[in-house]
């Protein structure tokens, strides 16, 4: 079971956090701080896995973003790397050549996509096609709505 997933930049800025275990906010911040520091200090050719506290950390860097997952002792490290990769593929497909900015400005979408891939820290749907289909049908529901905010956003509301 995945315990949590963190996305952060090379500068150590947290871009996305998803927790599959309940921790108080304070602990979450502490864990995040420690892990970001640990991982940023590692060199490029190093192993993608490390033992950390009671769990294992699997991480991978894509361009300027680090994707970092904590998994349980018995979980499969290599396949966790591929969960990360599948998520990156989904983001890439959805945003079209995803970059860090897409995730910053559309953080809620990044969450929605992740929820389609993993539930409760377990892989729910491994098929890329099926996840994208689910997201597309959500977007379809959205497009049916009237673009209500348009006037307010332009100071006309």
């Amino acid at each position, binding site marked *: 079971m995945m315990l949590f997933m963190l996305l952060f930049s090379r500068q150590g800025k947290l871009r996305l956090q998803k927790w599959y275990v309940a921790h108080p906010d304070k602990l979450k911040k502490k864990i995040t701080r420690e892990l970001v520091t640990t991982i940023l200090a590692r060199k490029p050719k190093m192993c993608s896995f490390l033992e950390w506290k009671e769990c294992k950390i699997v991480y991978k860097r894509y361009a300027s973003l680090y994707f970092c997952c904590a998994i349980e002792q018995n979980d499969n490290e*290599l396949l966790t790397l591929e969960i990360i990769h599948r998520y990156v593929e989904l983001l890439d497909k959805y945003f079209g050549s995803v970059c860090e900015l897409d995730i910053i400005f*559309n953080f809620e979408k990044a969450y929605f996509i992740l929820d389609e891939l993993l*539930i409760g820290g377990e892989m729910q*749907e491994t098929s890329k096609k099926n996840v994208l289909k689910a997201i597309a049908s*959500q977007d379809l529901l959205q497009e049916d709505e009237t673009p209500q*905010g*348009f006037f307010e*956003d332009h100071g006309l509301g």
Partner: protein
Amino acid sequence: MAPVRGDGMRGLAVFISDIRNCKSKEAEVKRINKELANIRSKFKGDKTLDGYQKKKYVCKLLFIFLLGHDIDFGHMEAVNLLSSNKYSEKQIGYLFISVLVNTNSDLISLIIQSIKNDLQSRNPIHVNLALQCIANIGSRDMAESFSNEIPKLLVSGDTMDVVKQSAALCLLRLFRSSPEIIPGGEWTSRIIHLLNDQHMGVVTAATSLIDALVKKNPEEYKGCVTLAVSRLSRIVTASYTDLQDYTYYFVPAPWLSVKLLRLLQNYNPVTEEPGVRARLNETLETILNKAQEPPKSKKVQHSNAKNAVLFEAINLIIHSDSEPNLLVRACNQLGQFLSNRETNLRYLALESMCHLATSEFSHEEVKKHQEVVILSMKMEKDVSVRQQAVDLLYAMCDRGNAEEIVQEMLNYLETADYSIREEMVLKVAILAEKYATDYTWYVDVILNLIRIAGDYVSEEVWYRVIQIVINHEEVQGYAAKTVFEALQAPACHENMVKVGGYILGEFGNLIAGDSRSAPLVQFKLLHSKYHLCSPMTRALLLSTYIKFINLFPEIRTNIQEVFRQHSNLRSADAELQQRASEYLQLSIVASTDVLATVLEEMPSFPERESSILNVLKKKKPGRVPENEIRESKSPAPSSVTQNSHSNHKFPLRTTNNANADLLGLSTPPSNNISAGGGALIDVLGDIYGAGGAVNNIKKFLFKNNGVLFENDILQIGVKSEFRKNMGRIGLFYGNKTQNPLTEFTPSLIWPADQEQKLSILLEGVEPRLEAGAQIQQMIAAEAFEDYCDSPSIDLSFKYNGTQQKINIKLPFTLNKFFEPTEMNAEQFFARWKNLGSEQQRAQRVFKAQTPMDLAGAANKLSGFGIQLLENVDPNPDNMVCAGIINTIRVQVGCLMRLEPNKQAEMFRLTIRSSKESVTKEICDMLVDQF
């Protein structure tokens, strides 16, 4: 710039841009506070906000929260969004609720109501949104509210596949916090049969759920094994085009495969059915075969997915530990990975091999890779990989390669990373102890450890080397010589001074004959380090000095001078001052004899599991014990050393605590207080027989240590030691309950006329025995002449206000004072004839215990204390023995012959001794015991 967003909420995009443009942390905080004030006023304002505005503000709050700021409002607005008929508003509402879970009870009922409504929706997208939210929150509230709906959604025929997938994992999430949510009965089989579902996504999700259920209740879900094996087999043999989008970079359904392989690891053996077993083995072989095929793609994703399945298959093979062929193949495969280009693979291969090393089938196979592993330890660029290599070397170590591995680890330690030094030191110390055939090697290794990595050598390690040197006479001289040499280094570690100080204090005399290490030289060498050491080490050195006065009276004045110096205010440390003045006085007032008694050589330490091992186990839970399982199969080296006890007079010493202060430097360890009977097990763990003994005194005729008495309240362990006419017993009273025992009073039952023959001295004990605690009582005995029966103790105490009374026989039986006597056939028969009179002999015939166990009988006789004589009786089945009972007034020679009759399953026992009472007593003891 802000236009990256695709859909509305331009205000949000502007806000995010503003934050990104902030030049400083302060500016960012300022901008955020401004926004928070704005949102707060909007939420509080008179103007009702429409859904869009609420969504926008809630989303901003979410963003602020994710930046790491606290958010304490907006929950109500988010909950309002849940019931919006616009999907995008609903979705943001759910996201906010999921991320900022709030246990506010007013809101939770509203949230639950909204979720209920969405679960009823005919649109699967709404249902999934609700399920995701339940899973994200995952609280008991959620479990209670949806314990009906979710299991129904999972197995109902009407549910769409996408909803089933979410429902399976949602249920799993709730099961983790509230296990009672899973309905039993007919549901079990319906859930198991999800493994047969047409839809791969459903199977993938359901397998995780079933895995968790199996962990909780393996019997009930046993039916999943057959289904899982056949599903796995179908996937593994499928071509990558068969599974369409569930094939990942040419690997068919890697996630499902791994989950199924994990699921199967919950059972051992995986299956009893030969057909299923054969199919599983075939499947595992196919996976191993595929690993040898050329890759279908150069992409790392392909190899990762393929190897993920392979590693999980190897895990299953290791877990089953029953197929030598598969284990060896797995080992070869991992061996190839050890020199793979990918660091990740090397790391995993080392880790996995650690487990293979603990299997008897593959241990030898793993050892073939020793060279490569040593190279990995030395050459890997990444410390976590080097760490794995160290772990593997530790796991693959055995008697055959110990010397080489320990040497390599020592070499590496000189340059090893600080982060892994401490653990390496422990490992080296354990290996050196465990596999030492020659204790000089062990001493060398530990001294090297201190020299190379003194800072990382913990107390447990240097305590242990001292224990071992004290318990092994043959190494004492060598140890003294070696530490003396080590101390000559201009800069030596404080731990070396401690070990050196202690060992020279005990055994310095063994090297004093050499003028290069004459008494004064030893003393000056040690004292040259004194001023550089911490108070604790100085205290130890002072003790060494007083021991020197005993060992080397000729340097008494030099030492007294030092004591004098430190016995006053110049020594700032009160403990040192006190020691110095007390030792000084002792050296002045005590006669040589008294001094010799007080400072007698330290008695042996009781043999027990190395305390270092415990430290390592604490550091690395889950790793060390596996290694131990294998160790227990081979004879433990410590058993070899156990006999050396008897060389010492009173080797009973309380070391209840693993960290007991062996050197008497600090306050004595308090009684080990732990829950249940754990405390006793620590001390007597190695000598426990098959428990449940209720004062079985007869057993103690043949052994000295074990559990003497046990009931629900109390356990009494015993350790005893005899020498000539003296004996000493340590009784360990362990309170097994959660309450203290009070008015705890043991009193001796031994009539005065008996006391004349065997005098008993009972040490006092504390009247209160705390819950789970253990106390020790020493009982000394001295035999003046032969006696019958044995003394007992009346133990009275109060437990929960009720008076309890127990009578316990003490294992001070006459045979304990036997001294085994060797003699040849001629001598034996001459004496046998001499002891032929009616009063001198006794004979009994009795039925043997079935099955008749001659080897066992011989063992018992040696335990009895009498010498078993070889090649005396012409009939090899007969056992003849000789011994002398030592008491102060009389010495009674005693001969014995035990003749088995295998057909009749009977024994004939004959005892002859020079004293009638002894003949009778010994005969009574031994009858019916074989």
